[in-house]
């Protein structure tokens, strides 16, 4: 929409214009994006930012946060700050992988199911609704327990759980887009089903997929943290926030707050970043859904 304008506003002007158009959602989106950019930078530069090796014993156990150990040390004398920095990697990789998996399965199935209809649609919908109604974490636990540890295995167990989210959304949109006049026109011109799906239906579901993807990553992060908190994550000593939390839980009565506070805060921050981005994008990309 910008391309048609002769006047091209600067970055700052565009930022504030976005705020004027979209209101609070704009700030939410931008704040979410900033959190994520910060986290991604930390993840990529982890070896340069972390002062110590996350799996080496570098100080006295249970050292309070001080200038040498920013977030203190854990029960084994490992630097909590370094573990928190490195922990971002595992969480982000698993969350991204699982969301990509579920999108890759859920979106095509949703498109086909909505477009073909009939028995295929009924069977797929029944299966997906069943998975959807089931407590996601418990399903993920069952799958993860059977598959055993490993980045790919954890990602798969999370992915299975979130496939229905994509499926239901894409199917619903496909059903409504299918009835649009331009699809009718394309069909009367003799376009094949594959062409219609690719050129007319798929582009229409992209915005929603983006939104769901972002919210999905937030959920995946929380699920991953939950799984590793329950001991179904990567085997130690890999730095992993959820696992560090469950390890620190044993030392809670001693009042060693720093061991559990910081990893949990990071999980919350990253999940918050993705859900803010998703929420904001939802209001911006699907304005019909906003309340008047």
């Amino acid at each position: 929409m910008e391309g048609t304008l002769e006047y091209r506003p600067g970055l700052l002007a565009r930022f504030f214009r976005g705020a004027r158009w979209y209101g609070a959602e704009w700030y939410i989106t931008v704040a979410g994006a900033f959190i994520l950019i910060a986290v991604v930078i930390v993840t990529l530069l982890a070896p340069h930012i972390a002062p110590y090796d996350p799996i080496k014993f570098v100080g006295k156990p249970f050292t309070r946060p001080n200038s040498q150990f920013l977030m203190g040390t854990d029960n084994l004398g490992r630097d909590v700050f370094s573990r928190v920095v490195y922990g971002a990697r595992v969480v982000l990789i698993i969350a991204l992988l699982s969301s990509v998996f579920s999108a890759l399965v859920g979106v095509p199935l949703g498109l086909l199911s909505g477009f073909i209809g009939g028995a295929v649609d009924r069977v797929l919908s029944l299966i997906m609704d069943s998975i959807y109604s089931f407590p996601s974490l418990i399903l993920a636990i069952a799958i993860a327990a059977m598959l055993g540890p490993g980045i790919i295995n954890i990602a798969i167990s999370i992915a299975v759980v979130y496939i229905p989210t994509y499926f239901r959304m894409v199917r619903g949109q496909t059903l409504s887009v299918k009835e649009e006049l331009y699809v009718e026109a394309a069909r009367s011109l003799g376009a094949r089903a594959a062409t219609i799906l690719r050129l007319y239906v798929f582009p229409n579901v992209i915005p929603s997929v983006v939104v769901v993807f972002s919210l999905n990553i937030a959920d995946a992060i929380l699920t991953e943290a939950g799984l590793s908190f329950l001991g179904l994550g990567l085997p130690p000593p890999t730095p992993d926030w959820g696992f560090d939390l469950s390890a620190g839980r044993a030392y809670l009565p001693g009042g060693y707050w720093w061991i559990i506070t910081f990893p949990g805060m990071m999980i919350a921050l990253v999940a918050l970043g993705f859900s803010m981005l998703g929420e904001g994008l939802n209001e911006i990309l699907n304005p019909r859904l906003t309340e008047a």
Partner: protein
Amino acid sequence: MVLVLVTLVFVILRVMPGDPVRAIMRPGAPQEYINEIKHNLGLDRPLFFNFRGSSAVVIPETVVLRTGPSDDEEMVMLVEKGAELAITDRVKTPQGDWLRLATKPGFEGWVTPKKVDWLRRVSFHFSPLKSEEKPGGEWVRIRIESFGLEGWAPAEHFQIKVNIFDSQYFNYLLSLLRLDLGTSIAPVRGRPVATDLKDKFPATLELSIFSMIVTVIIGVSTGAYAAHKRRSIADYGLRIYSIVIYALPVFWLGLMLQLIFGVYLGWFPVAGRIGTRLAPHKITGLFVLDSILTHNWASLKSALEHLALPSFTLGLYLSGVFTRLTRANMLDVLRQDFITAARARGIPERIVVYKHALKNAFIPILTMLGLQFALLLGGAVLTETTFSWPGMGRFLVERITYRDFPSIQGGVVFFALLVAAVSLIVDVIYAYLDPRIRY
């Protein structure tokens, strides 16, 4: 719906890659051992349809069963004409088509003296009757009450009955219909899963009920307030609250509350369900209810104190969704004509919002309560682990560490049934509350 869920759980646990037996064994365990354990657990039976035959009837006067599918293997048993045995495995070897057969409990037949020695070491549930010389040496006639014996024999000596539904899947469904969830492998082998679940479920139910109360109180009041003061600082604040609270890992929230209220302030206990030696006489298994019913006020106090932090944690976690939902519903309702009419009659705004509007906004909230039940159960698993709450979630997690997959399967199936039951109940209540809805 339930059938689909049960099938799904079955497929995930049995068909997907990942071998529960291999998970129990040390890495590098010999494949024969793994296969043997799998066979004993019945995991090598046909998954969905059984084409190899389910039982066999002996045709000749006697047939010798051996330890392996070959004539060179040691003899173990002698079965007589007309006896019916269950087929547990079938292989085609160069020597022909061999069946692995298991006797049924209550079997009476001939075994070798060596087998009798073995039986004496492993079981009390058999009785040797008499000893006789027969083809192949000395045989002892025995009767076994509680379990069957296995051996191999060529298929040509048997009349094979085929029942394609004699498979893991259909047998599992059948046992589910009898409310039989199987028995544990570890830590207590042979303990029925259903018994364990019956013990653990009240704890989870109690936690769920109290969390729901917390959720509804916090969620509905904040949501209604946000709708009332729409577009105010409070509204935006609550909106941020609902996003933030959803992004918090529930177990971390629990840990933080434990740290503040349990460790620093010392107000509430951080673990367990009730103080030592305070458990009330068991009537329903819900400690709060039981202690009221038995007038045991000391237990009631202890039970409520133990409940406070876990239910507040879980309730707070779910409240964000309700804040948002209540706000949206309230805004919808507030836009309707009867609200304008109420306002026009001069009824104070406070009463219009919190009485007239809130009442009408409640129906969708109730539905949401049902839908959030799944989320509640997931959160309960984590909360229970955080607070060492002896409920279903912790049970499930504990059994995962033992790789006790009948328990895992039973627990997951139980959760599935629970979710289905709750959604049914919600549908019924919904139809009752809103007469416009007809199914």
